[in-house]
């Protein structure tokens, strides 16, 4: 018989439960098995009512974020072998409302992503006939890392400031904001600086740094926010010397 591993899941069924509770499952262990595969086993073989999000199984879609033994991780990129011997506790991503079982309501995060104008606003409109907006590799290198975000929300679960104050724009949205502001083809900086300069913008960040630690794509949102603080401070000083409009 295969070795077994104990997996605890924080269950919450809104039509029956008033608060979440832990349910334990015994799953046959394989060396190459991911947490996401273990969840699929549970759903197929043990309890079909367990809900969780997933899609690509290769850390691209950003759907299967969850707390694994208290740490925000992607289920597909986390392997049972790293928790042997011992049990695994799976909980929905921290700092988000629980919709059902491991599924959270991310709408606040998505609205924040949308609010930072996450698209290139050209400095001057060009017609298609005039050709592409050219960019050199050096210009690309300035922001490329910050464009790797898959919107999984792990950084919001890692951020105690977001947990304590939901108005904070949060790591991923601010990293994406920096990504567009640092793009040589973009001319939307003035509009985005208004968002970044606010108390709920970069200045709510106290540089805990855990967001960068848990990021599965090496985006380093903490760095983007600190660079944002530098830009915000510069913006403030320059504004002091500008005549009133």
């Amino acid at each position, binding site marked *: 018989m295969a070795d077994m591993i104990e997996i605890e899941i924080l269950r*919450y069924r*809104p*039509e029956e439960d008033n*608060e*979440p509770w832990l349910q334990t499952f015994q799953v046959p262990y394989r060396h190459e098995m991911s947490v996401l595969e273990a969840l699929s086993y549970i759903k197929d073989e043990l309890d079909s009512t367990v809900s969780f999000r997933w899609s690509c199984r290769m850390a691209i879609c950003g759907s299967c974020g969850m707390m694994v033994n*208290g*740490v925000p991780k992607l289920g597909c990129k986390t392997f049972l072998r790293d928790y042997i011997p011992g049990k695994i506790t799976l909980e929905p991503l*921290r700092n988000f*409302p*629980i*919709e059902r079982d491991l599924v959270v*309501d991310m709408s606040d995060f998505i609205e924040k992503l949308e609010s930072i104008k996450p698209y290139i606003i050209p400095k001057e409109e060009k017609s298609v006939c005039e050709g592409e907006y050219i960019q050199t*590799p*050096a210009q*690309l*290198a*300035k922001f490329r*890392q910050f464009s790797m975000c898959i919107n999984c929300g792990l950084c919001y679960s890692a951020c*105690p400031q977001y*947990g*304590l104050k939901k108005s904070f724009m949060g790591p991923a949205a601010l990293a994406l904001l920096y990504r567009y502001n640092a793009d040589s083809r973009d001319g939307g900086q003035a509009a985005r600086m208004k968002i970044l300069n606010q108390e709920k913008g970069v200045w709510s960040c*106290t*540089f*805990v*740094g*855990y967001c*960068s*630690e848990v990021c599965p794509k090496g985006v*380093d949102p*903490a*760095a983007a926010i*600190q*660079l944002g*603080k*530098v830009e915000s401070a510069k913006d403030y000083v320059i504004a002091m010397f500008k005549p009133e409009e």
Partner: protein
Amino acid sequence: MDHSQSKRKPFVRPVKKSWWLKDRFYILYMLREGTSLLVAIYAVILMVGLLRLSQGEVAFNGWLAALTHPLSILLHLAVLAACAFHAKTWFALAPKAMRIFKGDELIPEKPIIMAQYIGLAGASLVVLLFVLLA
């Protein structure tokens, strides 16, 4: 869309006051921020010294004598440890606030962190020479 028949009932988990005790990363963060308390106490001690200096030689010598008390030495050792820990965390975080490019390549964090330690050693040496030669 009509949501009046919705079965949705999102559950919001409360953030407990002890949230930072759950994770080693958060504990170290709180320690880092907590070092500011000891540094603030040290700043007050220095300011009292300045005040005593303005009140004359007897007052200042009294302040100097108070500093030699074992409790005072213990406090200063704690302040030194707090400052050293804060400096270490600060040095480690500094590269995140300054991205330096060499051509298309981002300079890695390690040389930037090392440069700060070299700077610290250089500054300490200058201060030491100043104290010894003055």
